[in-house]
């Protein structure tokens, strides 16, 4: 697998985070680790860079947060999807698929 460029990554980060949260509320660190684990080395997400994205999505009402206690017994902020967030995820996923589809068809050699 080749590495995805940073620019493409930025637009994609939101949808990936939303996807991560579909399995239930989790804190920022868990989101980061899950992203790392699932994407392997293809996506290099700088440590902590997902937080501004989380804050922005919270502002837009896609996700909401609550303080809770983590597995280490420390205060942590847990994020979960809102109805708007689920809608957003569906929308972006569909868009992404359509985009990949079109680009894929164009780039397909001699089909």
């Amino acid at each position, binding site marked *: 697998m080749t590495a995805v460029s940073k620019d493409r990554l930025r637009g994609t980060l939101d949808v990936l985070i939303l996807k991560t949260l579909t399995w239930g*509320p989790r804190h920022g660190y868990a989101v980061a680790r899950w992203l790392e684990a699932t994407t392997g080395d293809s996506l290099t997400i700088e440590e902590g860079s997902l937080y501004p994205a989380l804050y*922005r999505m*919270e*502002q837009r009402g896609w996700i*909401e947060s*609550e303080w809770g206690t983590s597995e280490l017994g420390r205060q942590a902020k847990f994020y979960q999807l809102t109805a708007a967030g689920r809608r957003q995820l569906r929308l972006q996923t569909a868009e992404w698929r359509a985009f990949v589809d079109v680009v894929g068809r164009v780039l397909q050699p001699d089909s």
Partner: protein
Amino acid sequence: MPFPFWSPALHRRLFRRNVTDAVATELDFHLAMLAHDLERGGTDPADARRLAAARFNNLANIAAECRTIGHETERNMRRTLYLQEFLDDVRFAVRQLLKAPAFAIIAVFTLALGIGATTVIFSAVDAVLLRRFAFANPDRAVFVNESFKGQDGNVSAGNYLDWAAMSHSFSALTAEEFRSFNLTTPEAPERVLGGRVTANFFPALGVPPLHGRVFTAADDEPGNDGVVVLGEGLWRSHFGGDLGVLGRPVQLDGEVRTVIGIMPAGFDPTISQEELWVPVAFDAARRAEHDEHYLNVVGVLKPGVTLQQAQRDMDRVSRIERQRFPKDAYGSHVVGVADFITAPYRTPLLLLQGAVLLVLLIACGNVANLQLARSSSRAREMAIRAAIGAGRGRIVRQLLTENLLLAAFAGVIALVLAQLGIGALRVNAPAGIPRLEEAHIGWTVAVFAIGAAALSALLSGLMPALQLSRRDLQGTLRESGRQSQGTIRDRVRTALIVAEVALALPVLIGAGLLLRSATHLQHVDPGFDLNNVVMARAILPAGSPDQHILAIQRVVDDLSHRPGIAAAAMTSQAPMGPGGTSNGLLAEGKPFSQENLVQSRLRLVTTGYLATMKLRLKQGRWFSDQDAAGAPLVMIISEAVARAMFPGENPIGKRVGCCAPNSLKTVIGVVGDVRSNGPAQDIIPEFYLPLGQAPADAWNWIGNIMTVTVRGTTPDPAAATQAIRAAVRTVMPAAPVFRITTMRDALSATIAVDHFNTVLLVSLGVIGMLLAAIGIYGVVGYFVTLRTHEIGVRMALGATGTQALRLLAWQGLVPIVIGLAIGSGLAVSSATLLQASLYGVSAHDPLTYGAVISVLLLAGFLATVLPARRAARVEPMQALQ
């Protein structure tokens, strides 16, 4: 991690956490977790934390970005929350008001009436006083008047031209002479008011013509001035709005003039309602004329020049003029155009505005009182709200929302009422209040109404809300809503009575004073018998003075033979009528000086004038037919002239110079003073000349317009009116007859504005008093309910019904008396503002004060006793159960 529920309350608690803190905690947690994982992967614990931190390239940037977004989110949330709460409050308020529809309706209409009335008066204030005049630089436009012994007057052509040449303060000094013209139309000759203006008149005011052009300097030359500019109104009404009229000739006073331009609608810089303009085109004689004061001089101050500077400049110019023309030049007075035009209406309008605001305050007091009455039944509701955690501020906000809603409804209804009210005002207001017809609900007025509504919401709601939210929580819940401690609110209610009475009294006093003044005016002696007198203006056809005199004599002869006419005469100017000129009189032998000159109004009369008007001849004799041309020159003076010229002497036989060079006239009689400008105006000196001896110039002075006066045999003016028309038509078929009116109507017109003010203020006073009485009634009624139990105890212990009544009446009357005392203080200090509108009565007239205080006391007493009587009927057993 479960998310139990998502509520605004939870939201609030969440976001109360400091954003900076939250970001730090969150990122710190991330670091700790990272370190923890590294440790588990075998990293040395001492290095783990350092390595974790090293993985962050940009910790500070990330934190800053998060903080910015977080703060923004918090602000949005707070706004949303506030709006959410507000909407909740509104929804709740609607439910509350629907539950108490009687209260809601009474409160809304009380406020709507108050706000509506306030808005109507404000629309008049806005139209008459506040709106800028519709020409360029209205703030710099000034009248420059001749001033003589403190009186402003018009300017002579010679003085005007010298002023223009010598003054330095004006970017333009223009002159206009008002004149009515005979406009010849296919139907009948018609009188149209016009202005003869200097060429710089239109450019100085900066209003371009709607069509065509205005005058050039070339038009403003004698012989070259056969042009006319029409007003938009006249152009539409008489020329069908046809542009083809430009360049066409029209006949004005028999002269042909070419229409060159049309001024836009609303061009009326001095609110004089002239409908056309022609060049003034001074000829050489007029330029040298310093004695005939006809011009209205309007100047535009140079930018940066103040009124005071302009006045000083003009004082200097006037001094030079007086040295050159000691006889004819006076002082000068520079005054803002808007100030000069609106000055007479400023104080009365502002007083009305003040009075109506007081009434609005009283209305707010009543609504506050209604709310207090409801609050006893809502105490439990509030206690429960407080018990589940609503802070006092939150409860006050919710209660104020109810008031805001009431006021919003009231405001909408008030705007409808105001629209009707403004219509009624414009229809019923006397003519002549400048720009009143422009009153309407525009932006300024709408904003004012919204402000008044918001203020009413606050005033009527804040106090009850504070009271209600302050209640002792546990006490109320334990008492299960039963009233026991009304003391604090009693004090509030008592204060309400004091305030309402104190506010109502000044309005009522003002109304009382104006009523007294109006009664006084009705009894002012006009100096003649105005019953059955009808008058009309008639324009003499062009002709020589002899022809004029002959025509006038024939009209009077014709009239006196007609049925229904007791007496008939013609005069250059009748009391309460338009026209008229004044001349300086100088007693024979007195040296010429401004002090010795007695400026008096001239009245050219036919011999029947004395009998027609029933003037009082005080001394000497009246004119006879022998006082004609060629006979010795005679005059009759009014008592005011006699007092001024011949104090302590017998004026009969004295000779007086006036009206023409070296012309001495012998005083043959003295007549009683006449209130020529109406009962509200001071008496002015007047003198009479027989028609046959009219000075040659007099026909110009009066513009060839005479007034026909007849005394009918019945009060019905129909016969007299017809007779005047018929007689004038018989003698001078082409002469227009206009401004036909009875003397009584003409007199009423002179005091119409005062009368109107009186009606308005009296209505406001009565409304204020009724509102205050309703307020008192409500409060005392509440006291009765509150003390039923106590009274029952008292009566069980042997008190009589009368004693119970006295107890409660006392509770109501004390605040009324205190209110009257405070109100009297307010009235005494504010009534002086009214003094200028009062005639024959002092602003501190004890009789009025006594009467008004008695009336208000009586109203208060009734409002107290009616509900208090219930207390006397209390059945002890019932009350105690």
